Each structure stands twice: as C-alpha cells, then as structure tokens.
C-alpha cells in the first residue's frame, strides 16, 4: 500500500538563490507563522567535501501533526521527528533533499524527495523543483484497517503544506534578490 505523488514547480530565480532560500525556509521567523507545523530544525551533521564541492547535511525536523482524536489515541503523540538528508553539488548545481519520518515508523512511512536544478530552458535564471512524496501505512499496524483514510488525510496535508512551502520559498527568494541587487543601489 504505497501512495506516491509528484509535483513540479519552476522558480524564476537562479539556482544559487533558490537553494539559499531552501536552507532558510524553516528558520526565518517571519515564515514561522506560515509553516507553523515545523516546530524545530536542528542540524545534526555537516560535512563538506572541499575537493569536489559537495556538501552533505543531516537535519532533524520536529513537526506538529495533529490528527483526529482517534489517531492521536492510537499513536500516542502528535509531534513527529523527521530526518532530512541533503546533498548539494555546487559544481553540477544540484541540490537533493530526502526527508523521512523516524517517529511512528511502525505505523507509517513517509518519504519526500526534493530536487532543485537549473531549468533547461534558462540555466542561469530559473530553477526547477521536483518533489516526490510517498506514503505507506504499515500493513499490520493499528492503522491498517483505516489505511486508505489516513493516507488520504496525510496526502492532503502534505499538499497543503507544500503549497505553503512554495509561497515561503518565493518570498525568501524575493528578499534575497533585493538583498543582493537592490540594497546597494538604494544607498546611492
């Protein structure tokens, strides 16, 4: 029982700016209200391959995911820890994020893969984001009998949150654009 969803979005900003925005997405206080389901983000590991220009990072995301009461009763908690592993290749300009839940794994497995690359039609100006989400309810878990419903709800929530995520990304990109270009000329 696996459900998979893919989404694609084009940012009209260069790859460097979009991936910078991606790092700031959860941390920016102004966005905390929009992405209120993200409670905390901690960097657990960080490794730079200074020869090839590859950066490997692992972060812990603490997510607030309140469900209906019966779900909370079964699961026993409404916060969930996820681990996000990121590989950025600065040379080939690709950023790939993979996020998996590490809490509640005996009930459900959610995996989200996001990839940012320069857009083939405008390599220096645009960035394409491909997002793939798969949701799997464990067959013998207490949730199995209502798997269909839970998967549906879970998927809806993911969709809502990724729309919010895109709005935040667009906002940070605009901010970074202003910071890199606009400010200098404003002061003259």
């Amino acid at each position, binding site marked *: 029982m696996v459900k998979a969803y893919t989404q694609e979005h084009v940012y009209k900003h260069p790859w460097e700016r979009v991936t910078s925005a991606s790092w700031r997405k959860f941390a920016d206080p102004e966005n905390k209200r929009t992405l209120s389901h993200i409670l905390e983000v*901690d960097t657990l*590991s960080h490794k*730079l391959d*200074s020869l090839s220009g590859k950066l490997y990072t692992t972060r812990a995301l603490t997510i607030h995911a309140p469900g209906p009461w019966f779900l909370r009763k079964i699961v026993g908690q409404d916060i969930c820890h996820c681990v996000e592993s990121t590989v950025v290749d600065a040379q080939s300009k690709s950023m790939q994020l993979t996020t998996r839940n590490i*809490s509640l794994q005996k009930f459900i497995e959610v995996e989200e893969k996001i990839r940012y690359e320069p857009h083939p039609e405008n390599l220096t100006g645009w960035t394409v984001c491909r997002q793939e989400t798969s949701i799997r309810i464990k067959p013998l878990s207490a949730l199995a009998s209502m798997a269909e419903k839970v998967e549906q709800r879970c998927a809806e929530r993911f969709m809502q949150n990724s729309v919010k995520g895109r709005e935040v990304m667009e906002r940070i990109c605009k901010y970074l654009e202003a910071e890199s270009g606009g400010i200098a000329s404003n002061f003259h």
Partner: protein
Amino acid sequence: MGMSKRDKKSSFTSPCAHLRTAYHNCFNRWYSEKFVKGMWDKEECVSEWQKYRACLSEHLDDKHLSRFLEAEGIVDSATQGVKNPVDGVSQ
C-alpha cells in the same frame, strides 16, 4: 517512541537555541556568499558548529536522533585519519 514524549512538546533542544541561531546564520551567509560561488575549498563557521554540536550532544535525548550525531562523529574521525598531512598550502 515513548508515550512520555508527549509532555515534552517542542522544546527538546531549546537550551541550544542561541547557538543554533548563531550557527545557522553563519552557515546561511557562507552558503550563499561563498559555497554557491565556487569558493568551497574552505570550511567556515567551525567554532559556531562545534559549540552548537556540543550543546546538542548534551541535550538531544531522543535516541533516534542522537544516532545521527554519533554517526557523524565516526565520519569525522575517519576523514581526519585520511587527511593529507601536507603542511600549509593555504596561500
């Protein structure tokens, strides 16, 4: 995945919040001003990272998460072992 986690809410690493902000700010600046512009040969924010990480390893009580911290320790020592001991060619 203990049920006791319910009471802890979000603040499981908040004692490290200041160090976390310092590190993330430094990292974000390094990423957008150096790393993506091809200047990836030099690691920055090292002292911020060490302070933050030390705090995390003290306060991260979730065993699923601390596994990832420990895993990094192993990678660290492994790469340091391989590191070339050629002296200063920084210029």
